[in-house]
C-alpha cells in the first residue's frame, strides 16, 4: 500500500521495503542517519573537547616515552630485540587512547543522550530500530577513533618511533579495538542510573591502563596474575598494536584480532538487547 507520490519514496515505502528481512523489527539499515545527526551536532560543539582526544596520548608519550624514557634507555620487545622506551610504549598509548575514546563516547556521551537529551527516545519514535541507533553511535565513535589514530600515528611516525612499515596496520587495529570497547560500553551504560555510577567504569579502566603491559612487559608478574591480565581486553589491544608497530607480525596477531571480533559481536547483541529493553519495552 504505497500511498505517497511516485517521484519520491515515502517514509512508509522505505520502511516496508525491509519487511520480512531478518531483524526488521530492530534494524532498518540506517545507522548512517544517526551518524549524520552527530555531524550536525559536532558543528556546534566545542572544538577543544574534540581536540583533547588527540592531545591526550601525545602528552603521555612526551612525559613517559621521551621524559622517563631518557632515564630508562632501551628495553627488549617481545622478540628479544632492543628498542627505545618511547618506541615500546607508543603502540600501548595508541591502543589505550582507542579504548579511552571509545569508552568516553559510549559512556559519557551515550549517558547524556539517553537520560538528558532524550535523543534516543526521539530516534526510536521514527522508523529507526535500536540496532540502527547502536550501530550509528558506535560507527561515530569509530570515525573519531580513526581520525585520532591517524593523528597520533603522524606524530609518532614523524618522531621516528614506528620502526616498521607494518606499523600502518596499527590504524585499522586501533579502529577494531575502539569497535570492541564501544559496543560493550554502550550496553554497560544502559545500566547506569546517574553520573556517580560512571566512576565504576573508571574504577575498572584506570588499573587496566596501568597494569596491562602498557609501560612494562608482563614478564614481571607471577603466572597467575599474568593469566588474568592476558584475558583483559586492553592487554589484547596493546599486544595487537605493538606487534604491528614493531613489525613483529605473526599468527598470534590474528588471535588478538579475533578476541576483538568476538567482543564486537557479543557487545552488539548485548547493547541492542538493552536498548530494546529500555526504549521498546
Amino acid at each position, binding site marked *: 500500500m504505497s500511498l*505517497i507520490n511516485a517521484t519520491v519514496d515515502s517514509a512508509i515505502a522505505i520502511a516496508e521495503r525491509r519487511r520480512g528481512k531478518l531483524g*526488521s523489527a530492530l534494524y532498518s539499515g540506517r545507522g548512517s542517519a544517526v551518524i549524520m545527526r552527530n555531524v550536525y551536532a559536532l558543528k556546534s*560543539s566545542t572544538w577543544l573537547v574534540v581536540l583533547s582526544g588527540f592531545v591526550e596520548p601525545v602528552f603521555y608519550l612526551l612525559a613517559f616515552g621521551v621524559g622517563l624514557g631518557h632515564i630508562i634507555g632501551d628495553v627488549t620487545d617481545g622478540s628479544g630485540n632492543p628498542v627505545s622506551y618511547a618506541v615500546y610504549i607508543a603502540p600501548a598509548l595508541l591502543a589505550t587512547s582507542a579504548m579511552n575514546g571509545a569508552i568516553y563516547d559510549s559512556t559519557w556521551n551515550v549517558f547524556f543522550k539517553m537520560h538528558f*537529551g532524550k535523543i534516543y527516545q526521539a530516534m526510536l*519514535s*521514527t522508523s529507526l*530500530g535500536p540496532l540502527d541507533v547502536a550501530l550509528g553511535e558506535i560507527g561515530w565513535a569509530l570515525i573519531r577513533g580513526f581520525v585520532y589514530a591517524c593523528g597520533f600515528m603522524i606524530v609518532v611516525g614523524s618522531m621516528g618511533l614506528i620502526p616498521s612499515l607494518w606499523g600502518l596496520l596499527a590504524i585499522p587495529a586501533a579502529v577494531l579495538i575502539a569497535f570492541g570497547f564501544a559496543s560493550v560500553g554502550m550496553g554497560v551504560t544502559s545500566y547506569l542510573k546517574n553520573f556517580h555510577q560512571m566512576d565504576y567504569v573508571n574504577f575498572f579502566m584506570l588499573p587496566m591502563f596501568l597494569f596491562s603491559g602498557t609501560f612494562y612487559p608482563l614478564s614481571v608478574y607471577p603466572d597467575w596474575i599474568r593469566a588474568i591480565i592476558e584475558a583483559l581486553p586492553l592487554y589484547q589491544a596493546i599486544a595487537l598494536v605493538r606487534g604491528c608497530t614493531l613489525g613483529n607480525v605473526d599468527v598470534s596477531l590474528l588471535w588478538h584480532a579475533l578476541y576483538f571480533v568476538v567482543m564486537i559481536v557479543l557487545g552488539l547483541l548485548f547493547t541492542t538487547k538493552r536498548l530494546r529493553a529500555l526504549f*521498546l519495552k
Partner: protein
Amino acid sequence: MPKSDAHTSTDATPELMIVAKGLTKKYGDFVAVDGIDFEVKRGESFGLLGPNGAGKSTTMKMIASTSQRSGGELRILDKDPNQHGPEIRAHLGVVPQQDNLDREMKVWENLKAYGRFFGLKGAWLDNKVTELLEFAQLEEKRNSKTDDLSGGMKRRLTIARGLVNEPEILMLDEPTTGLDPQARHILWDRLFRLKENGVTLVITTHYMDEAEQLCDRLVVMDKGKIMAEGSPAALIKEYSSKEVLEVRFGSENNKEIAKQIEGIGERLEILPDRILVYTDNGERALENILAKGLHPVTTLVRRSSLEDVFLRLTGRTLVD
C-alpha cells in the same frame, strides 16, 4: 502546508486506522491500561481525556509501538506493532508530552536530521524543512539554537518535526500543557489545519476545553479503564444537564447547606469549595435557592462541560 491529500483513501467507507481490543499494559503488578477497546477512523480527531495517571500516555506509547502491550489486540493500519514497529512508526508523527528536541542542533537541523531517520532523501527534505518551518511559523528561527525558542515555539517545532514523514496519524500527548493561552490558540489553529488536510489526530489531554475544541470523538479514561465514549456534545448530553449552577457558601458551610437545597435541579455535586447544581435552567434554580432564604457568596450559571461528565463518571475533578 504539509500535503496529506495524497494520503486520503478513495473508497467511501472510512478506513480504520487504529483498532484496540482488550488492550492491556502491566508494569509488574500495576495495571496501567486495563483492557480497553476503541477504534479510530481515518481523518478523525480522536481524544483520550483523563487525569494524570489514567493510562493515556501508556496507550499512546503502545500505539506508537515504543511500548509492547501486555495483553489484548492492537492493530495500526492493520499491522501488529509487536512485529512491524519500524513500519508502523513510518506512518506516525509523534509529539511527546515533554519536548525532546535535539539541543545540540539548530532548528532546521532538527527537522532535517529527523527526516533522515526515516530514510528520506536530502533534496526532498530541504523543501520539506522550508515548508514545515512556514507551517510552524518559525521561518525566522531557522538558524536559531533550539534552546533559544519559547515554550510555544518549541512545541510547534516538535509538531513540525512530527510531520516530516508526512504521517497519516499524528499522535499528540498533552499538546498544550504548560503553554500560555495565546500559544495554545496558535497551536490549536495549526492542528485544525492538519485536520482539514485529512491527517488523523490522536490527542491526549486533561484539559476539557482542549478536548471540546479539537476532538470529534473521545474516550474518558480513569485508572486504566474507559469510562465513556462519544462526541463531546453527546457525552455532555448523556452524562450531564444542559446548564450548571455553581454556588459557593464558603468551604465550611457547603456540606450543611447542600442538605437544604436537595431537590433543586436534577442532581447535586458537592465539591470542597462549591456546590454544583445540574439543571436545565440555572437561573430558575438560583431563584429557588434564594427563595429559601439562602445567600450564596458567589453564583455562576454556565453550560455543562466535559469536566462535569468526568465528575459524574468518576466522582473526581480532572485537574486536582
